């Protein structure tokens, strides 16, 4: 019975480590998808000057996972435009769907939301480019630190589990 309990404890620690690793991978995937979406947004604005409702639908179709949910949420929320400003819809969608982003990544995205749709095309493109650059920097940094973070996460979880088992044996 005691052995089974210790095994459960160790497994729980490993599970926490795995969840941490999954969150890191998810953040990387979200950053990657956001970078792709920004690239597409820039292209659409530059070539077709697409209106934001159409653009959000397009990005929702072309994205995956959380980023897809983010753009879908905005596109659906546009029915409430007027009751809520576009920046508020953007903020709400970001907070509801992109939990894994770090505060400064979220800030970059929210800054974009507060500027989108308010200026003429050149300025609009400038804002998208600035956000795209920030997110790409974050993505590269996250990619570089990924392997180390995963090792540390799983290592710490296993070590913590082992320590607990030893201490409680």
């Amino acid at each position: 019975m005691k052995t089974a309990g210790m095994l459960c404890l160790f497994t729980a620690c490993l599970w926490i480590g795995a969840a941490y690793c999954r969150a890191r991978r998810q953040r990387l995937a979200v950053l990657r998808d956001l970078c792709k979406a920004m690239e597409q947004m820039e292209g659409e604005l530059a070539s077709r000057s697409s209106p934001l409702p159409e653009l959000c639908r397009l990005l929702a179709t072309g994205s995956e996972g959380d980023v897809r949910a983010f753009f879908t949420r905005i596109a659906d929320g546009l029915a409430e435009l007027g009751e809520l400003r576009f920046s508020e819809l953007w903020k709400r969608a970001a907070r509801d769907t992109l939990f894994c982003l770090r505060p400064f990544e979220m800030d970059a995205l929210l800054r974009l939301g507060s500027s989108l749709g308010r200026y003429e095309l050149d300025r609009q493109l400038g804002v998208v480019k600035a956000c795209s650059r920030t997110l790409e920097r974050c993505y590269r940094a996250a990619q570089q630190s990924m392997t180390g973070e995963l090792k540390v996460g799983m290592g710490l979880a296993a070590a913590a589990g082992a320590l607990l088992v030893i201490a409680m044996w």
Partner: protein
Amino acid sequence: MKAMENACRLLSGEHASALRAYGDDGAEEIRLRIGRRPSVLIDGWERTFSKTPVTETDLLRLLEVATGASLHTAAPALADGYLSYRGLRIGLCGTVVVQESKVCTFRSFTSAAIRLPAEHRGICDALADEILSSGLGSTLVLSPPGGGKTTALRELIRRFSDAGLRVCVVDERNELAAVDGAVPQFDLGSRCDVLTGVDKASGTTMLLRAMNPQIIAMDEIGRRDDLAAVEQAAGCGVWLLASVHARDRDELLLREGYRRLLERRVFRYLITIRGSGAARRYSLSREGA
């Protein structure tokens, strides 16, 4: 009714409720001025409909809803001082930004006028029949601003189109057809093709090349480019159907470009609209008759 409902979407909750309660009996325009109570224009008179003055936030809200939060898509129209939203024309006032002697956009907004389009079926039936029976020709509709030119033009388009003529419309401001999501909000007849959002000169060229029109219709010819578009189409074997701001023929002759058009007999018929509201009268005259 639909126009009024669309206009309400542009207003803040309180103003929209007040406007709905006021009703739309003969409403032609809604005027919003910062610091003043909003008003509705009926029979040439403005009547306030809400106790709360308009704020800058109200105008920014209007702008965001009207452009679908996409100001960049409305930049060319904005440079001309208006926006289009589901068949409504929204005129804007404020401080403009001028770059290289051209109006680019607005820095701030102080007032807006939401024009409510009207559909009065049959108002031009007699005129259309007279034109069709005495030989089709290019027709110019005259009235002062807010005189009902667009409504009359829309009716003429519908009548000519239903009479079997291929009518192509250059709907620069999206007021004639009020296309919303590829669906025209107004009936322009069974043989009508609409080109939306393009200036009249480019639109006329595109239609002449691609659509084999018998009649080209355009609303409010006013700029030099518009007159050039009219002259271009006039020599290409198509009839024109257009409208212009002028009280009557004499007033029109005061303007050089139009005088030249009339002297060259580009237009065979002039339709002059007098009066306002239900008391509007439409008179047809034949040029050179």
